[in-house]
C-alpha cells in the first residue's frame, strides 16, 4: 500500500512540473467553458425551461462538466500498450507490484494534481464570471464529491480495459480513442441525458458510463435530491466492482497470451 501512495505522490508532483503548461491548461479549459456558456445562453435566449432544465441549471451543468473533464487524466491504457510494444512490460511483470494498481495510482496522482491546479481554478473563475450555482448544503457537496470519486475510479478501470483491448489489436491508440469517445458520449459530459432522444437516453441510463459525469452532476445541480442519492451511489459502486472483476479477468487472459508470444 505504501508503494502505491508513493507512486501517487510522485506522479502528483510530476504532472505539475511545467507551470506554464498548467496555466495554459486552465486557459484552454476556460475557453471551453466560455463556448458552452455562450451556446447554452443562445439556446435559452427566448425560453425559460427546456428538457426539464432551467437556463441556470443547464449552464451550471455544462460548465461544471467542463471542469470535471479536465480533472480526470487517464493514461493507464496508453501506457500499458506502450510498454507492450516496446517490450518493457516483461520487466514490469517481474516487479513485485500489481501493474493495474501501479498504473491506476499514477493516474490518480495526475488526476489529483489536475483537479487542484486546473479544475479548481476553472471552477472558481467560472463561478465569478458566469454566475453558476453551487450546492447549498455541505451534505450535497460531500455526496457530489463521493459520486465524482466513484466516477473517476470507473474511468480508471475503463482506461485499463481499453489498454488490455489494445494488446489484442496490437497497437492500442485506436482502442483508447474509442473508449474516450464512448465515455464522453454516453456519460452526458456534453449534453445532460435528459436531452437525448428517448431510445438513446434509455441506452445511456443502462450503461455504466453515466457514472462519470451525469450522475455526479445531477447531484450537483440538485436534480437528484439527497435521499435519492443513496441508490445512485450504490449503482456506481456496483459498476465499479463489475468492471474491476472484468478487468482482472481480461488482464489475466491477456497476460497468458503475452507469454505465448514468448515476450
Amino acid at each position, binding site marked *: 500500500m505504501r508503494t502505491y501512495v508513493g507512486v501517487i505522490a510522485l506522479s502528483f508532483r510530476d504532472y505539475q512540473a511545467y507551470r506554464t503548461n498548467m496555466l495554459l491548461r486552465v486557459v*484552454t479549459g476556460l475557453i471551453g467553458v466560455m463556448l458552452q456558456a*455562450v451556446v447554452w445562453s*443562445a439556446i435559452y435566449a427566448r425560453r425559460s425551461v427546456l428538457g426539464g432544465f432551467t437556463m441556470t441549471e443547464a449552464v451550471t451543468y455544462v460548465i461544471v462538466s467542463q471542469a470535471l473533464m479536465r480533472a480526470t487524466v487517464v493514461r493507464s491504457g496508453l501506457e500499458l500498450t506502450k510498454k507492450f510494444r516496446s517490450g518493457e512490460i516483461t520487466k514490469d511483470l517481474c516487479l513485485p507490484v500489481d501493474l493495474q494498481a501501479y498504473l491506476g495510482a499514477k493516474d490518480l496522482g495526475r488526476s489529483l494534481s489536475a483537479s487542484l491546479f486546473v479544475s479548481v481554478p476553472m471552477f472558481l473563475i467560472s463561478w465569478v464570471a458566469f454566475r453558476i450555482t453551487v450546492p447549498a448544503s455541505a451534505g450535497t457537496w460531500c455526496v457530489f464529491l463521493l459520486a465524482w470519486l466513484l466516477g473517476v475510479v470507473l474511468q480508471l478501470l475503463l482506461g485499463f480495459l481499453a489498454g488490455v483491448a489494445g494488446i489484442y489489436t496490437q497497437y492500442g*491508440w*485506436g482502442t483508447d480513442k474509442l473508449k474516450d*469517445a464512448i465515455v464522453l458520449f454516453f456519460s452526458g459530459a*456534453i449534453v445532460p441525458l435528459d436531452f*437525448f432522444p428517448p431510445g438513446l437516453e434509455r441506452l445511456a441510463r443502462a450503461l455504466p458510463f453515466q457514472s462519470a459525469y451525469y450522475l455526479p452532476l445531477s447531484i450537483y445541480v440538485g436534480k437528484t435530491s439527497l435521499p435519492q442519492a443513496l441508490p445512485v451511489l450504490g449503482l456506481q459502486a456496483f459498476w465499479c466492482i463489475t468492471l474491476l472483476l472484468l478487468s482482472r479477468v481480461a488482464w489475466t487472459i491477456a497476460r497468458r497470451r503475452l507469454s505465448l508470444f514468448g515476450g
Partner: protein
Amino acid sequence: MVGEVFRGFVRGIVLYAHFAAMNWRRITVSPVDFIIGFTAVFIQECLGLTTIVFVMRQLPSVRGWTFWEIVLIYGFFTTARSLWHVFMINGMDLSAYIRLGRLDRFLTRPLDPLFQIYADGWDEDGWGELILGAALLFTAAINLQVNWWVRAPLLIINLVAGALVYAAIILAASSLSFWTVENDALMSLLGTLGTLGQYPLTIYGRSLQWVLSTLVPFAFVGFWPAQAFLPRTASALSYLTPLVAIALFYAAIRMFKAGLSCYQGTGT
C-alpha cells in the same frame, strides 16, 4: 522565369505524388487499428454535434439561425479543418521535428524544408472527420435547397481556402517553437479556440467576433466562407476568403522562414 516557376511547380507535384503513395501505405499498415481509430474520431466529432442535434433541433431558431443553417456552418468548418487535419497536420508538430532533430535531416536535402514537413506523412484519424463533415454539408445543403451544381467550384475553392486559413494559423503559432522549442500546450489551446469557429459567429459578443475574424481568424475557416451558400446572409467577406487564405498562408510561411533563419538545432 515563368518557365522556371512552372517547372518547379510540376516537380513539386510529381514529388508530392511519390510521398503521397508512401503515406497512404503507411497509414493502412495496421488496418484494424486504422478502422478503430477512424470510428473513434468519427464518434468524437459527433460529440460536438450532440448539442446541435439533440437540443437545437427542437427549436425554431437560435439567435436567428435555423437548425439546417447551423448544420451547414458546422459541416463546412468540419470539412475544411479535416482537409488540414489529413494533409497538413504536420505543420503542428514543428516542435517535435526540432526536438528530435528530424528537421536537420530535411535541411540537408535539396528541397524546401516546409514542403518536406507537409509531405512527411498523412494523419490516420482525420478521415472520419472528413466523411462526417462532407455528409453534414451535403444534408444541410439539400435541406436548404442550395443549388449544388452551379456552386460546386466555389464550394471546393472555399473549402480549400478554409483549410489554408486553419493551416496558416497553426503554422504561424507552430513557428514560435523555433524560439521556444516546446509548445504543445499552445497547440492544444488553439485547437480549443478553433472549435469556436464551428458555430455561427453572431452568437458571440462583438469583441469576440472581431478576435475570431482578425487576430485568430478561425471565422474564415467555416463561418465566412460558408456564407456563400446561405443566400439569406451572404456578404462580401464570403467571397474574399480565398484572398484572405493566400495572404495569411504567405504570412505564415514568412514567419516559418524567419524562424528557420535563426534556427541552430538542439543538438539531437
